[in-house]
């Protein structure tokens, strides 16, 4: 088992539809100070490198990495920003530590989604400026296209997609971080307003504000600092086709490749048997089913059926998004992967409270950067007690 890099501290702040009382810097500080206390480190003395994930248009600031260091305790230190999901940030810290040059690295991601007045227009600018954008379609249409083809090829049903929403928002009832917990029926979901048919509005995660900071350490340093390290057993990431014109629509080859990379490092042959739970992409409800299949947790076309049988419930054979996922907790934009990692760490430490899953040793986390991208990352965590 891979014992080179461990997560030794987690911290969060916000997790509300809006956070008017604090600036983005103050939101980041609140998460950082909590993560550092959890890890028992002083950022000025102990943390050697810092990684932030951010996108300029989401922040409303060009070269946003400028504004990162101060509130993280990172001023005049080794800091860099990547434009990726939080799991890409985690993978970056993982690589930095594996070089042997760094012992302690912190990763930060945040969302101040409530401050963005024109989110749909901004996301629209992620479309190809020449080929796609002139059609003036709301970018959710890409998910509508994908869902349509996925349902067609996999035989999954609208009811099964709606059942993902029911499960996740119900799971969220037990998670104090969740903003969108609810008791719904599949009927409620299917009768909700359409967004990009067959995709409905209630099958789409709603953005929230929040920040997550995670502190990682080398095996040597983790042994010194932490009595409950959560080990990174494997990390993978991959991009698919950037253009809409040449991508697969019913399967997620890039998620599959990212997972294979992570499984190879972790020595996992059959995730269904060897992984105990997963926190995965549910930006759109159908994504949870499609991702489970790409991750090899079940065969193509099987996820919907297994869901209906309760296999992915918190007390099922393979709990998926016991936290409530992005549908239940809210979507933290590019900090979403870090939110899922946070939930997995709490589970593996036995600190997940009311939504704690019994007897867990290995967790899987997966994230996707949203429409119109084909960018995904996968992490395998282990508490080494198994």
């Amino acid at each position: 088992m891979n014992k080179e890099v461990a997560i030794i501290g987690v911290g969060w702040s916000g997790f509300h539809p809006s956070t008017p009382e604090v600036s983005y810097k103050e939101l980041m500080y609140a998460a950082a100070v909590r993560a550092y206390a959890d890890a028992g480190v002083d950022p000025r003395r102990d943390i050697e490198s810092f990684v932030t994930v951010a996108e300029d248009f989401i922040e409303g600031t060009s070269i946003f990495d400028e504004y990162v260091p101060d509130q993280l305790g990172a001023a005049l230190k080794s800091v860099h920003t990547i434009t990726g999901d939080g799991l890409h940030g985690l993978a970056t810290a993982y690589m930095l530590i594996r070089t042997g040059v760094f012992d302690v690295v912190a990763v930060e991601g945040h969302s101040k989604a409530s401050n963005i007045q024109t989110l749909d227009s901004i996301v629209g600018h992620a479309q190809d400026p020449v080929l796609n954008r002139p059609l003036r379609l709301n970018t959710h249409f890409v998910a509508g296209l994908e869902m349509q083809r996925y349902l067609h090829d996999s035989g999954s049903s609208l009811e099964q997609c709606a059942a993902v929403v029911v499960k996740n928002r119900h799971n969220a009832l037990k998670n104090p971080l969740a903003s969108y917990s609810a008791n719904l029926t599949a009927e409620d979901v299917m009768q909700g307003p359409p967004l990009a048919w067959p995709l409905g509005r209630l099958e789409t995660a709603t953005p929230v504000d929040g920040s997550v900071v995670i502190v990682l350490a080398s095996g040597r340093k983790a042994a010194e600092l932490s009595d409950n390290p959560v080990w990174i057993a494997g990390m993978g990431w991959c991009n698919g086709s950037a253009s809409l014109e040449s991508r697969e629509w019913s399967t997620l080859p890039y998620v599959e490749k990212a997972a294979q990379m992570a499984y190879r490092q972790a020595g996992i042959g059959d995730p269904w048997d060897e992984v105990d739970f997963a926190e995965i992409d549910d930006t759109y409800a159908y994504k949870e089913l499609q991702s489970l299949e790409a991750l090899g947790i079940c065969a193509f076309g099987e996820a919907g059926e297994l869901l209906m049988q309760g296999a992915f419930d918190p007390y099922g054979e393979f709990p998926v998004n016991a936290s409530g996922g992005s549908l239940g907790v809210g979507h933290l934009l590019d900090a979403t992967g870090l939110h899922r990692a946070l939930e997995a760490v709490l589970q593996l430490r036995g600190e997940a409270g009311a939504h704690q899953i019994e007897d867990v040793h290995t967790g899987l986390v997966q994230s996707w950067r949203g429409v119109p991208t084909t960018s995904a990352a996968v992490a395998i965590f282990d508490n080494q007690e198994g």
Partner: protein
Amino acid sequence: MGMRKVAVIGAGMTKFVRRALETPKELSWEAAKMALDSCELTMDDVDGVCFGTAPDAFDGVHMNGEYCSDGAGAWNKPFMRCFVGGGTGVFVPIQGWYHVASGLFDVVLVVAEEKMSSYYPHAQAAFLTIFDHTTERPLKPNLLWIFALEMNRYMTTYGIRKEDIARVSVQHKRNAANHPCALLGEANITVEDVLNSEVLAWPVQRFDVSPVSDGAVALVLAAEHVAKRLTDKPVWIEGVGWHLDTAYWTNRDLAYPRYVEYAAKMAYDMAGIKEPRKEIHIAEPYDPFDYKALHHLEGLQLAERGKAIELYLSGAAAPDGDLPICPSGGLLGVGNPIAAAGLMKVAELFWQLRSEAGARQVPGQPRRGLAQAWGDLMQVGTVIVMGR
């Protein structure tokens, strides 16, 4: 864990032009293809891709890295985009370095691309949004402000004359006359030309500044066992460093770039360098403005504070001097497509250290070189030391 050695084994670049016909994806691919061809590899040999480009505002494309990813060769590959403002160009190969040094990758393609001409009517206006949205942007600052403020502080603190600083611009633009990709190479430019150019933001004049440009550069990085199989002239990445200073730039003395000093120390420690002035044979400090090259040489410990200009006045900085500086022609001469410009400096080291720089080749077969970039609110230093 012993550290894995990482080599640069191939490089490619496009011409730097004011306005390119090619799209960002196409520029990226042209440079990537050339880099792969140079070491006889194909995309099948590449395990992952690192990509650098500065603000999305130039292209008006949100998540520009994702948009450009297939052009950079990342279809069906692990892909990462780093982002440290102007420092990005020298950071991408650092990102490539940690991909390989981590043991997860054997061959990584590193691509930096910038297309500034898409912004309408002028790329400079995009820089308004780099300032703090609440405390600075309402004053409508131009990007030139911060350079002019820093240059003035630097000149005044050390008593450096404008006519001496102009020598930097002259030297770099003359060097660039020998670069086949250069936008502003001028073999006959003089100090008077610089001093007579339009005053943009005193003390900054037009010829003190590098031109906005379009272009792309790519490198191929490989782990030791792969590099030794593929080339008998690997150029090793011996040290890397990066540091980011506080965002509160008005709370610092701008006369000296401490962040560059700290980044350089990190790289020197890794490379085992104790006396940089003796152990570095060729330097490509970041030169978007002429005074910046001086500022950075001091931060890099290649000159004492306020004394870097002496390297130019004494001839040491010339291609045949004892510390050739920006033999490529730098940003002032070759052009400044931001991220690509930084990586151009690293490509120049690769060519110089392999004695493949053509008309720009410095004499004496340099053994070790340094490239550095800078960015953000006068805030970030990125440094790479390479040797053969």
